[in-house]
């Protein structure tokens, strides 16, 4: 690691977007200060570092803030290009393909999944679930194309798409536990199911992914709190 590099990650342990950054930092072997934010009482530092969105994750590098998980990942990849594996390939077309699938994960899987988990009506949740499952089906094909026989979207090694999707894995397992549905079903999406098992065995995943049990308790508590506040308005 370059001398004098001060890395501080403003985050919240349940956030899959924060997990992505932790994965990237672990893959690169970079040490950093892990700052846990109280999202109900955001720190001055967070508000100052991300005045536009006021969201985590924020990576502060030598005092300069970088926001948005995928922008942070590309930043890390560029600044620490000679440290650890490259998250993006060198070939321009392959880079475009990787960026395409990262955007797909965010727009077509993560966004509907959140709606499935936290939608306000049963209709919203059901629509989110349908879209999320459809996206998983498409990603199976993407993995087949991108892996080129290797075990990851990045080919033989972990790449940007792997980190983008890997960051949400603990939440996917939590959702499976809460809903009883199998999201990465070996019968329906065998490549992805195998990829999941391969990914969680990585040292970086063991270091960065939040504990599924702890996350499940967090999710249940949050659902209960949401239901309770709804009741207040119904009385």
């Amino acid at each position: 690691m370059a001398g004098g590099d001060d890395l501080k990650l403003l985050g919240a342990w349940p956030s899959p977007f924060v997990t992505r950054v932790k994965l990237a930092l672990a893959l690169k072997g970079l040490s950093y200060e892990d700052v846990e934010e109280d999202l109900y009482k955001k720190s001055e530092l967070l508000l100052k570092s991300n005045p536009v969105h006021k969201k985590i994750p924020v990576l502060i590098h030598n005092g300069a803030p970088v926001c948005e998980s995928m922008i942070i990942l590309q930043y890390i990849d560029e600044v620490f290009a000679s440290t650890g594996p490259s998250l993006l390939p060198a070939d321009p077309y392959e880079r475009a393909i990787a960026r395409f699938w990262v955007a797909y994960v965010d727009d077509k899987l993560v966004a509907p999944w959140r709606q499935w988990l936290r939608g306000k009506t049963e209709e919203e949740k059901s629509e989110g679930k349908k879209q999320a499952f459809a996206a998983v089906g498409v990603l199976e094909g993407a993995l087949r194309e991108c892996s080129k026989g290797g075990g990851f979207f990045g080919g033989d090694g972990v790449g940007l798409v792997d980190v983008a999707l890997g960051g949400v894995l603990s939440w996917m397992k939590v959702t499976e536990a809460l809903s009883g549905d199998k999201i990465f079903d070996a019968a329906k999406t065998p490549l992805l199911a195998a990829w999941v098992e391969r990914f969680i065995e990585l040292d970086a995943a063991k270091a960065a992914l939040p504990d599924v049990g702890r996350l499940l308790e967090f999710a249940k508590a949050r659902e209960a709190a949401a239901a309770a506040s709804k009741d207040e308005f119904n009385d």
Partner: protein
Amino acid sequence: TACTTQTQTQIDRDPKQPGAMAGEKGLVLLDFWVSPFGQRVRIALAEKGLPYEYAEEDLMAGKSDRLLRANPVHKKIPVLLHDGRPVNESLIILQYLEDAFPDAPALLPSDPYARAQARFWADYVDKKVYDCGSRLWKLKGEPQAQARAEMLDILKTLDGALGDKPFFGGDKFGFVDAAFAPFTAWFHSYERYGEFSLPEVAPKIAAWAKRCGERESVAKSLYSPDKVYDFIGLLKKKYGIE
């Protein structure tokens, strides 16, 4: 503002190569005349001095086989075909051009931190402007008032981000400028539907818009604000909105 006429080209299709269109060398842009996302790519190609074939997709009539094969996942324009291989999503196309043509003038700065800032603001424009603008002309009453308030906030935020620089890229027209410039043709419509004046709300953005319009790449790629306003009227009819 004038714009080049579009030609629909018939090309040979190679059924063995699903993504690649056999025999097509060079750059082909599948686009729709008024799309701000397509215009970003036209602007970038012009700024980089890269020749290409423009292929208009008549989206009001439906989607061509070529588009559906080039972008099976989203079925959307713009699609840039480079030697037959498709690149999708406007900002991804812009970054592809940076990578694939390193000798052409760059839109992104070389410093990683500055690049992250540029990506951030392009992402902000992407997340906020078109969506909010659409709600402004689609909705009425309270939801429209909310969209209006959001639009003012977005424009003020971008005004602050631009600051006293001539361009978002600094002295040079850059990535964020290319990403946002197409929306300058939509400002007039936003003003009319939102009942506000851009120079009052975001004076620096208003001045920047004029500056962008003076660039050949932008002037040649955009249609007039009146044409955009008329197009919105057409969309409203299509969606059955009063």
